[in-house]
């Protein structure tokens, strides 16, 4: 495990809080005084994983920075649903400029703070997978390469949801989107395209890169807090299911994030200076079907005109992740 698990207390590490734990052992989210950085009344869909992931991450960053935090936001769902002019849900200084320049704006904010001598004020930049892996990628890479003092957080829901579910470079193979329709011999998004931004970030050799999901709050908070203790360019990639774009039930958001990790489809790890330092192990390994079936974007893989070969291919990708990152304990791998 990538962090110190809470020793057995009925539910141990897994729940948000626990009445039996001391205050220092509790998660930020369990606190009555958490900052609720993105407040009620935002217009995210029912069961939005991104709204949840953003609150988890920014609340943790607020706690670690003693509430001295400025957020820079790329265009995307998160920006649109939280801040329809003139309303805002944000409970911290927050700036939005363009779709593709969040990393560059954050660099500028960090530089301005440095000039003004406000070293205690920290900067996060955040965006969806579109604003991060596609449109903002050049600015992001520049921010990494210059090692600017910014924590960039990507909330990955695997497509452009805000504009009507178009494919991004984070969309998984076979998934249905508005631009990868389930028609023809190879329905949905194709195999062999897209990019793995956490690994590209690692290739920049920046101080810290991590992945997390909304299903493992303790792990997510640990990573954000650890990143906030460091300086230089840091990148956290958070997996956030999208009920609207994925065609999943609104109450399955956390379950799907959990299954993404437990199937090996989304490896959860952290890396320092380009080197993987720890992984979150799979607790109860599940076949890929468990993850795919509750999502309508994969519906064409099953049923009357099923594509078992594509399911197998997806399983192979998950298995490769498991091997590559060592996601299974030795005994579980053999058992």
């Amino acid at each position: 495990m990538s962090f110190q698990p809470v020793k057995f207390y009925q539910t141990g590490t897994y729940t948000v809080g626990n009445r039996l734990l001391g205050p220092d052992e509790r998660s930020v989210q369990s606190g009555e005084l958490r900052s609720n950085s993105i407040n009620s009344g935002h217009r995210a869909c029912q069961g939005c994983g991104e709204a949840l992931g953003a609150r988890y991450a920014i609340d943790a960053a607020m706690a670690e920075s003693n509430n001295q935090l400025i957020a820079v936001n790329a265009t995307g769902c998160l920006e649109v649903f939280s801040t329809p002019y003139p309303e805002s849900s944000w409970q911290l200084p927050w700036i939005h400029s363009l779709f593709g320049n969040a990393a560059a704006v954050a660099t500028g904010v960090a530089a301005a703070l440095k000039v003004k001598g406000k070293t205690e004020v920290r900067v996060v930049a955040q965006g969806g997978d579109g604003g991060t892996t596609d449109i903002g990628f050049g600015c992001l890479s520049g921010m990494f390469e210059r090692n600017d003092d910014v924590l960039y957080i990507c909330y990955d829901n695997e497509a452009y949801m805000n504009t009507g579910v178009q494919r991004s470079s984070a969309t998984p193979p076979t998934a249905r989107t508005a631009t990868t329709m389930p028609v023809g011999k190879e329905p949905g998004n194709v195999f062999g395209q897209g990019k793995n931004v956490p690994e590209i970030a690692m290739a920049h050799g920046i101080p810290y890169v991590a992945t997390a999901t909304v299903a493992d709050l303790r792990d997510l908070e640990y990573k954000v807090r650890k990143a906030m203790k460091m300086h230089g360019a840091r990148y956290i990639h958070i997996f956030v299911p999208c009920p609207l774009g994925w065609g999943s039930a609104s109450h399955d958001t956390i379950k799907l994030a959990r299954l993404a990790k437990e199937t090996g489809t989304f490896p959860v790890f952290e890396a320092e200076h380009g080197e993987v330092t720890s992984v979150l192990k799979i607790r109860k390994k599940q076949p890929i079907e468990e993850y795919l079936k509750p999502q309508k974007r994969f519906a064409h893989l099953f049923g009357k005109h099923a594509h078992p070969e594509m399911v197998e291919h997806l399983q192979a990708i998950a298995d490769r992740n498991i091997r590559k990152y060592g996601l299974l304990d030795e005994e579980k791998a053999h058992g």
Partner: protein
Amino acid sequence: MANKPFAITLKPGTSLANLTGSWRSARPVYLNRLPPCNNACPAGENIQGWLFHAESGDYEQAWRVLVRDNPLPAVMGRVCYHPCETSCNRGQLDEAVGINSVERFLGDEANKRGWKFDAPAAATGKKVLVVGAGPSGLSAAYHLARMGHQVEIQEAGPLAGGMMRFGIPKYRLPREVLDAEVQRILDLGVTLKLNTKVEHIEQSMKDGGFDAAFLAVGAHIGKRAMIPAGDAAHIVDAVSVLRSMEGEDKPMLGRKVVVYGGGNTAIDVARSVKRMGGEPIIVYRRTRDRAPAHDFEIEEALQEGVLIKWLSTIKQAEVGEITVEKMELDEKGFPQPTGEFEKLEADSVVLALGQDVDLSLLEGVSGLEIKDGTVQVAPNMMTGHDGIFAGGDMVPSERTVTVGVGHGKKAARNIDAWLRDITYAPEPKHEIATFDKLNPWYYSDADKTVRPMLDMIRRQTSFDEVQGGLDETNALFEARRCLSCGNCFECDNCYGVCPDNAVIKLGPGKGFEFNYDYCKGCGICEAECPCGSIKMVPEDI
């Protein structure tokens, strides 16, 4: 508008003005569901409720919640067959919570630390006679006393405890444990008259000026079976054997002892014989899986060297030997004779074929219905005679200590209502928190704590207690294995997982509240509640 900067027409506002609760088609509500353990407990204990306190290490509070329903936790923790554990949801995850061992720990803790019951309610001035100081009578006396009634127990035997003393061997229930829990009940102001056999119930009630009576005389008469026997053949019944184990003179059964029957009493006798240096053989007409004895008791008996002849009946008993006939099960599972015979050495035969009730005290009482040797009672435990209630082994039911204790509680509540001239109406039961209502992902993996067992030589030669107890650390661990099925244990999950901050945390011990102004009804809180304490209810639209 004139004072605003270029191109700005509206003041900045907060999203709190946007009441997203109007999007909702279903609303989450908190509820309590009935944990399967509570539902299965014959004594109606709030098991999840007392484990909740034990989990935080507050053993005294745990014990106090426990004894609201059952005054004998140290006894229960030893002799109860724990249907709670059989139904425990954790059994579907890894292993059932060791409820029985935690109960015993709490009972022993209470004895060690001298905890007393809360003082009784204000005196009501009513007098209740309890006949029989067994589990049912003691339980009724306890509950009636706490309700403020004046209680007198009249017991025919020389000591209190009933079958707990004269039926259950010491290696399962050390007598000092029983004595301590009986004494605590008497300390509530209950009068106990020993060696007082009630010959005629109406007369006894009249003599003592009692307003109501609870009968719990048990079933102490061993059933006989017609076995052709020579004049000198030594045939005794199991109840008298177990009873005489309590006295100075141990029963004279000889070396080879045949025990006839397949219930828990047969096992108790055989294991006791083993401890006295005898060589017990149990003869039972059916197979192990059809024996009424609990399998773990059969297993422990076999471990200790008790021999068991399955599918056998006794045809003839003579001095020094018996003849048994082999049986086979027919397609309906009934044993049928095969005509194959076998001789066994036997210095004595102990019949453990069940017990009958001594109903002589009820002679001449009007309105009673006796069926199959037991007294029929209404759902409120009252017999056909106004003001006379009955429970325990003398009424139709499963005959265990825990059922007896449950009868005592139920009868006490109904007697109390009857004395006040009202009807006791129990609160409607919550729906059961079945396993599918839980989200077991959240519970840490933790195997059941194994209780220590006495070493084999001492199990075969002494009446020392076979099963050991837990100490404080592992009792705490075991309590914390509880899943808290159907009842919020403040894990903060709902508060954490709501994407809309629509759950309000009210603080330690106060739980949570939904903020329906903003709750969009996504249902994540219900899906991610570990213990099934949230339910989605459709909105009227």
